[in-house]
């Protein structure tokens, strides 16, 4: 740590505005949310009339509820898919785009498209692709000579059918972040490496990736925490954990309990679970992919 950054005054000056916002708009409401998790609330927007009995009812339920278990397992799969699929593909694409001279603008623009289309529309598109009767995929398989229709949303296929679109949609997001990181790397480093006779691949392995470490770590943190929160596309394609509550994720289950099942206090408890897991997992991620800083 450089000795120029010592002045306490600036720490407060720089951090305070952001933390005031966080406190007023996020922490204060979230403390009320913790309060809610001990109340008995049937209508969102109220604080209920009484306390839960026993007081820790929701927390006991959290441990015993089999759907929580399903959604945690699904979320774990989603995290793996996020790390390997989203960040992995995004990294490959970003490195490739970094190595071409013509068309970078084009690829940067089109890779961004999936993130801007609303989940409702993407959900419909993927529903039509995976549609049981005359969906794009089943028609294609029929054309290839397959006789019977495959229900892509049944118990054995549902998870994969749900994750594929989510992974695909957010590749562009990590792509943009990683691209920016690559652009921050000094061109001179590559030039001097080239003079030393390094091949293209060597330059990627020994310059790009190490220099990107902080940014990759940021992406992984965002990916792991994002998997806990992901909600809209899975919910549009598989509302209420269809089929047989097999496709719930922590994010969709929290939404379901709060908005659909009207078990608002339990929804609050699930929100706390999401936050706690998010903090723990982001720490673990940082520990594994340790950054230069000791955060």
């Amino acid at each position, binding site marked *: 740590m450089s000795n120029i950054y010592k002045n306490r005054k600036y720490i407060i000056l720089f951090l305070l505005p952001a933390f005031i916002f966080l406190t007023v708009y996020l922490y204060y409401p979230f403390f009320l949310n913790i309060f809610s998790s001990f109340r008995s609330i049937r*209508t969102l927007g109220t604080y209920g009339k009484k306390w839960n009995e026993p007081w820790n009812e929701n927390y006991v339920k959290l441990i015993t509820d089999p759907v929580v278990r399903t959604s945690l397992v699904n979320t774990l799969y989603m995290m793996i898919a996020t790390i390997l699929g989203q960040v992995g593909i995004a990294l490959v694409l970003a490195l490739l785009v970094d190595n071409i001279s013509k068309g970078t603008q084009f690829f940067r623009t089109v890779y961004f498209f999936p993130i801007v289309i609303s989940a409702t529309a993407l959900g419909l598109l993927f529903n039509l692709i995976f549609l049981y009767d005359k969906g794009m995929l089943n028609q294609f398989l029929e054309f290839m000579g397959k006789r019977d229709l495959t229900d892509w949303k049944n118990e054995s296929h549902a998870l994969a059918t749900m994750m594929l679109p989510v992974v695909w949609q957010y590749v562009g997001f990590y792509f943009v972040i990683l691209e920016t990181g690559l652009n921050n790397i000094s061109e001179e480093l590559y030039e001097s490496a080239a003079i030393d006779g390094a091949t293209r691949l060597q330059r990627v392995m020994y310059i790009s990736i190490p220099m990107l470490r902080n940014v990759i770590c940021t992406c992984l943190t965002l990916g792991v925490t994002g998997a806990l929160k992901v909600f809209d596309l899975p919910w549009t394609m598989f509302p209420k954990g269809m089929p047989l509550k097999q496709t719930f994720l922590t994010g969709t289950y929290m939404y379901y309990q709060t908005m659909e099942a009207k078990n608002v206090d339990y929804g609050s408890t699930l929100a706390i679970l999401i936050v706690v897991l998010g903090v723990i997992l982001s720490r673990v991620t940082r520990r594994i992919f340790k950054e230069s800083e000791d955060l």
Partner: protein
Amino acid sequence: MKMKKFAALILGITMTAVLAGCGVQGAAPAAPAAPAEEPAEETAEETSEPAGGVEITVTTTFAGEDTNAQNYKDSVAAWEAKTGNKVSDTSATSDETFKTRVITDFEVGSEPDVLFFFNGADANDFVNAGKVVSIDDIRAEFPEYASNMNDDLIAASPADGVKYAVPVNGYWEAMFVNTKVLDEAGVAMPGADYTWDQFIADCDKIKAAGYTPIAAALGNIPHYWWEFCIFNQQTPENHLDIPQSATDATGAQWVAGLNDIKDLYEKGFFPDNTLSATDDETFAMFTDDKAAFLLDGSWKVGGIVGACQSDPDDPSTLDADKVAHFDVTYFPSKGNRKTTDLVGGLSMGYYITTKAWEDPDRKAAAVSFVEHMTSDEVVPLFAQHTASALKNAPKVDESKFNPLQVKAMDMMSGVTSLTGAVQDLFNGDCRVSTFDGMPDIVEGNVDAADAVQEGIDVYKETIE
């Protein structure tokens, strides 16, 4: 529940109401015809002509794709022109966000002056908090308020048995039929004496002919089957009872009803992917001549007719041949419920909030607004082929209706009773175990009795 009496009484009125609509169903662009001839400007019974220049906030669900969104806009404009008042309209499509918004508004004191909302258990919170004014209190000052309505048809709040909301348009639930599929399977169009056994036999034939008998997404919208299969174990008199346990008389009826659905599922009468399909998908099977029966509400008349038009917004593009093979009939009966006993009623209405009532200016304006929106001229526009609570609904010109609406009116003219949906009283998280749990019940993972008991336990906790 007052709804029992309501069920019997609504009949006579329904018949008039059924013939009362003069709007063109599902036809927003065609609607300009309706406002043009809207006679509301000269409503005779306006008692409270406010000074004008008052702005009231109104929240309704007549927005977006609601069939009445255009009617609502036109009626509001007519009222504004007539009184010189202004409406600050904060309507939105009815969904969970909307309900939450309304409840929160009442909690923080930013509720609208006039609210069009559900009159069932959804309104309990603000009714209990005394945030809305009862019809009787309003009549104490404005004796003509809702005087054109048949009071017996106005539903009381389940919270305190007092009437708050003045209803406009009602609904019914019945079974739509794809007659083309029936013909190809050699099955006759069901009539007013259709029984469960006949229904099962017909489904067998339809299945044997290679079609799906019932278009329903049990994993998505099991609501209608839930309601009718339970109703089938009961009569209109006791349908709105809520069981105390899964083993009492009503509880046993609920369990038997759910097991009937399981039976249909095991027989393979639902689509192969009924547990993983969305309601849109199974509805498309029905309109694509792949499935024979569709149990749904009166709002689906517009959906089916829309599917028969090359431009869903333009009634002139209606494919007459296609719409001809859709019909609507009663739900097959089993036991004491008559085939012609249907589920339906008036589940929403206009509330005036205490906040508006305590403001002298807005009080008169709010009353005038609700009187206008519930007048003999405006209500039929909204009610169309459904039901209303009007005492004297004007005659309608049947030629303005599309073929399916005419069939719907025919069916409604044979209805022997309309009973409210018990699921509206047993709402929120009570019904999670039997609605969202339906796939587990029909798959046999969960026993129907256990699921019913679980719901009852939650219900008891709610009313404590």
